[in-house]
């Protein structure tokens, strides 16, 4: 239940941040969203068993499911890589233009009207 509440709070915060104008806030939103999904994986493995799946002869009735842990480990590095790229993209490009600008045509064509897009 606690895990479900935490995941819910993280997703709420992530959705709020993803809809912000500032690029950095969007990236923080993605960090929170991947946190939420990682916790979702842990809860998918069953949260009753808390023992670590290490040692020579783990007892399956008390040790945690190792498969979701491997999933999360993989998902963390993938999200990490994309977050780094997103951060680089956030500081690339001219200083003048902002995320709020949705006109992605390259030249500000004078013959095109403002209302075209």
């Amino acid at each position, binding site marked *: 239940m606690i895990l479900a509440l935490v995941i819910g709070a993280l997703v709420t915060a992530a959705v709020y941040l993803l809809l912000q104008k500032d690029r950095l806030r969007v990236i923080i939103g*993605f960090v929170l969203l991947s946190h939420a*999904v990682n916790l*979702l994986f842990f809860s*998918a493995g069953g949260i009753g068993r808390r023992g670590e799946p290490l040692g020579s002869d783990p007892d399956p009735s008390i040790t945690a499911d190792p498969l979701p842990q491997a999933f999360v480990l993989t998902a963390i590095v993938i*999200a990490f890589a*994309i977050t780094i790229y997103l951060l680089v*993209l956030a500081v690339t490009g001219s200083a003048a233009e902002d995320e709020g600008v949705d006109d992605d*045509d390259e030249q500000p064509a004078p013959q095109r009207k403002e209302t075209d897009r």
Partner: protein
Amino acid sequence: MMASLLPLFVVVPLIAAGIAAFARRSHRWSSVLLLATLAATTIAAGALVAATAQGQVVAAALGGWPGGIAIPFVADVFSALVMTVAGVLTLVSCWFALVGGTGRHPLFASLVLVLIAGVNGALLTADLFNLFVFIEVMLLPSYGLLVIAQKGKGTLRSVVGSRLYVTFNLFVSTVFLAGVALVYGTAGTVNLAELSDAAATSDLTAAAVAVCLFALAMKAAVVPVHGWLARAYPSTSPAVTAMFSALHTKVAIYAIYRIYAVVFEGDQRWLWIGVVLFSATMVVGVLGAVGETRIRSILAFHMVSQIGYILLGVALFTQLGLAAGIFYLLHHMIVKSSLFLSAAAVETRYGTDVLADLRNRVGREPLLTVVFGVAALSLAGLPPFSGFFAKLTLITGAVEAGQITAAIIALAVSLITLMSMLKIFNAVFAPTVTGSFRNEDHAVVEAPPTPLHLVAPAATLAAVTLGLGLGAEGLFDLATVAAAGLLDTRAYVEAVLP
């Protein structure tokens, strides 16, 4: 023997990518390595089509672990066909990129090789989490390719388009991942074969897999979430758009076909959702295309519309409907690449793809005109070309399944498709049709036509669509076998879990 070679479709491109990453300034050897590796995997995929043409399923349990524990790599004729066509189109796009200039970036070969490794992996895997990983393997080099530009000078437009593409795809991947977590929580496995028919036994698992399917539909740009594709694809370099048009959305479509067939067993109860969404995709996509003013933007919206057509095949879920959808998928990959390559040739030669700027500038371009005309008519579905056969079978399938409304929409959308293709054609390729040559444009009209080596890649694919239109039966037979494999998934499941 065949089965144990399946991982090579991923391993060989990855090793070649690692080697190609050492290329610094002299890029000739890395280009040769790129083309040779792509040709080898494509030929191997073609051999795989031959080996599975009678409906056989080849499966390998990676690492030699028992079925259900190992990650399974499975190939049937469906995955082999998509892999072959994707390989051919990547090869042709690389050919254009190398000729057109984009491919001269030192990292180009390496990125494309990782991309094709990810595509092959995503097509072969039968494990949901592994599918997620391979989709990421496919996406990460794509992010690099999006901003790669001629002479190492990126445009602001490609950075802005890239931001949209990366954020959207990261969001969709995270949703897909959440779906996989829910599947694991409810079913206890992420192996597709073990999930066979799971949707019928547990409503919770059905809902969890539906989350995955909706994420894949977002990746395929189905209508409520199609805006990203229309914005991101035209922003990159022309050669890269042509390459992506055959890979990303099509892998998502393949996964939707596969997952709905295996996990839902083609459950009739939910097909109406597909029929509604995909009909809307056909209409909204083509209407968006009519309103656009650049060649590549028009083509990107057409891609959305055609994705609706392809996915309609899975929403019919009959033998004929699935076969028509698979044929449509293969035909469309080829035609769309041809169109994007024609547009790329124009853009490389004339420096812009805005219709208003190109009007009356593209003078005597007989070859380019024919090539673009053939692909455009094939896209609209006119008789001598493969698009006619694809649309005919799809509409027959829709009528047979009782989806009269969807059939009528598919027919009506074809007319609008033809209309906006004619808009490009009239503005760019056939200035004499519009009648007037302005004086100030006259000097430009006399400029030499686009060199042959820029047109040749698009011409090759245009010839393929004509060939497929005249000899559609061969490919349609293979598509029928693939459809039979989706209708009855027992062979697939038994291959993974012996």
